[in-house]
């Protein structure tokens, strides 16, 4: 719930309690913080967690993030960040992900022995497909798409 502000951001607020929208119904100069959640075991994000930034901080083994059903994915966005030197896999329902020049992918995997840590993937759904946007830590990080 909105709470009275104790310090001013650069963002317009309404009654000091909620973001305001401008004449075009935009939230202008959005000031926000992510919902950041660490997962030390494999996990299936919930639809209501859209906008969440998942990390593998503290994981001692491989982590698999399994995306929800694609039919419910319109507008859903998740971020995944490999924070340990462990494999990280993003798995969509079979053949419903666009990634790495593959329009019918299922998995995006960071398992390169020298490049497991420090990689990120943003995943956005449109109700038909999941779209993966990988951001690698270095040029030579190998992303496996299957």
């Amino acid at each position, binding site marked *: 719930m909105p709470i009275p502000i104790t*310090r*001013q*951001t*650069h*963002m*317009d607020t*309404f009654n000091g309690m*909620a*973001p*305001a*929208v*401008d*004449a*075009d*119904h*935009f*939230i*202008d*100069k*959005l*000031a*926000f*913080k*992510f*919902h*950041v959640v*660490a997962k030390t075991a494999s996990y299936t994000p919930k*639809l*209501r967690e*859209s*906008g969440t*930034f998942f*990390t593998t*901080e503290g994981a001692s083994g491989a982590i698999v993030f399994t995306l929800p059903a694609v039919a419910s994915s319109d*507008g859903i966005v998740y971020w995944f*960040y490999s*924070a*340990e*030197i462990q494999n990280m896999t993003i798995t969509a329902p079979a053949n419903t992900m666009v990634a790495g020049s593959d329009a019918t992918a299922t998995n995006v995997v960071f398992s390169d022995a*020298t*490049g*497991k*840590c*420090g990689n*990120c993937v943003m995943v956005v759904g449109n109700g038909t497909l999941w779209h993966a946007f990988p*951001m*690698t*830590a*270095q*040029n030579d*990080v190998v992303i496996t798409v299957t």
Partner: protein
Amino acid sequence: MPRETTRQTFMDVYKGKTPAIDDDKQIDNIAYKMRVSAKAADYTVVAKDSGTVFMQTVGDVNFTLPDRESGLIFWFIGTTDHEIMLTSDTAGKMMGFNDVAIDTIAFTTAGEQEGCGFMAFSDGAFWYPCIIKGLATTTLTQA
């Protein structure tokens, strides 16, 4: 200040002045603009800048991140062929390439810097820079 709307976006609003939230307490179909701030000199980012896109405009620019706090998020983009660097608030508290304890990360190679950048967020324990590469091959320096 909020004012009566003259044109509807795709985002549901409440009383025409504030974003509505849905049953999952999400702002659905969020319509927003980002705060963009140009920097031509080194800058120490502050927590209330969260959500801002910083643009390096002239010369090398070192952005020092604020104290780690869960959810803080910033973007940094180089717009000229000069170095753009992120420095953690505390040594060893930033995640790097196959290194969980770096101090700085930077694009340092001339000819590769324009259009490169970072998105950096924190979980309260570390800073996590996500890399935006302007070219297929881009050199990053971390220390």
